[in-house]
């Protein structure tokens, strides 16, 4: 009896096994493709064809393909970030540190983009933006407003709003679809073209095109910072918080005089790919009142400060450390101290520091 029953089940088992084999083979093929795409090499994939493995149609998930252009995706993200009414809870995590939660809201009020970023822990620090007016409402400091186009939030501004500005320094590669914050998401790699900057992985909601997650990886591929949306809500109407807040109720804009262009008698003769000098001046540090000669570099994703000041004491060895993904490097070359600070690998900070050299400039100061 047992034998007869077994022999009857054999053809069914064979069919199930065959189907399983074909399924495993198909999945393996996709996995290999995914692993190959996952490498950090700066290959050119202007247009990626990826398997839509999270298709709602489960009957044939591996057969459907989606052709998606990276530039098209980034443009959609930029449009969505600037035009939708949404709110998102963001967690910023750095290994070894307590995660920092934020609430991020955006909407359109009277045809103007409005934005709110508030830290959910600690004092109720909030940053509110009405168009190009950004107000800082922090119980620990006097409320003030600046004329700014954006809030400096957890997601890199240019990546989500002006992705073209990072294209010289980074290549964006579409990896495929995955899942983040409970949503189907496009996964993109942002790879430094000359491997001298950190790499990033971005997840954007496949439906709304809003950013969901951003991992920052060091050159070894280790996570050094993560911005994760745990909740994303999109609505047709403006959030009630914005209805209560009025631009007229915000502090007056503090006008900042554009810095005078000084001729510094030093220059950085070679910069990493896509990195540009965006500012240079001479100013005083708020805490120590020291006068510093200053150059700000940017590649669109990260900003790097270079300081030159009079050394106050001997420092036989370089001071080098990384805190909150920010590298600090300082070298005293009597009588001067040179410091490089930014979200860049220590090796890149050292390279920038080594590229500093003195130049001959006229003694007069240019206005």
């Amino acid at each position: 009896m047992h034998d007869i029953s077994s022999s009857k089940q054999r053809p069914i088992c064979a069919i199930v096994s065959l189907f399983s084999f074909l399924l495993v083979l198909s999945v393996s093929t996709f996995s290999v493709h995914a692993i190959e795409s996952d490498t950090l090499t700066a290959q050119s994939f202007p247009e990626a064809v990826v398997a839509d493995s999270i298709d709602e149609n489960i009957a044939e998930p591996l057969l459907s393909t989606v052709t998606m252009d990276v530039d098209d995706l980034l443009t959609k993200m930029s449009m969505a970030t600037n035009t939708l009414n949404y709110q998102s809870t963001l967690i910023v995590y750095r290994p070894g540190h307590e995660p920092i939660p934020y609430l991020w809201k955006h909407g359109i009020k009277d045809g103007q983009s409005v934005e709110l970023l508030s830290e959910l822990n600690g004092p109720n620090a909030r940053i509110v933006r009405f168009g190009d007016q950004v107000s800082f409402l922090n119980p620990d400091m006097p409320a003030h407003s600046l004329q700014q186009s954006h809030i400096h939030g957890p997601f890199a501004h240019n990546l989500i709003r002006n992705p073209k500005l990072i294209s010289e320094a980074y290549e964006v590669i579409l990896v495929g679809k995955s899942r983040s914050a409970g949503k189907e998401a496009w996964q993109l790699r942002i790879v430094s073209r000359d491997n001298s900057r950190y790499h990033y992985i971005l997840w954007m909601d496949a439906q709304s095109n809003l950013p969901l997650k951003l991992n920052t990886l060091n050159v070894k591929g280790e996570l050094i910072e993560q911005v994760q949306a745990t909740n994303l809500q999109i609505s047709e109407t403006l959030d009630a918080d914005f209805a209560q807040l009025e631009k007229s109720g915000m502090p007056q804009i503090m006008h900042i005089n554009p810095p005078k262009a000084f001729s510094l008698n030093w220059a950085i003769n070679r910069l990493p790919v896509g990195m540009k000098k965006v500012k240079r001046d001479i100013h005083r540090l708020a805490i120590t009142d020291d006068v510093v000669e200053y150059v700000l570099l940017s590649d669109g994703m990260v900003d790097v400060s270079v300081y030159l000041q009079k050394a106050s004491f001997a420092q036989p060895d370089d001071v080098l450390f990384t805190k909150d993904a920010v590298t600090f490097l300082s070298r005293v070359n009597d009588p001067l101290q040179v410091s490089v600070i930014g979200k860049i690998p220590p090796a890149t900070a050292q390279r920038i520091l080594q590229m500093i050299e003195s130049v001959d400039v006229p003694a007069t100061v240019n206005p």
Partner: protein
Amino acid sequence: VSLSQSRTIQTPEQQMNERQAVLEQRKRINALLVDHQQQIRLKAAIENVIEPKIEQVNPE
């Protein structure tokens, strides 16, 4: 067990000076880190970034 000591013993005054030098160095490093953050914030205030035209387009 050797009773010979190669390490020089610092006087309390020397120890205090060394401690003060370390504190001073930390203060200078902190001043630079704070200034760096401030410069990034101010950069947004002085640069003229042209934002995409705002149109309210919500998903269906």
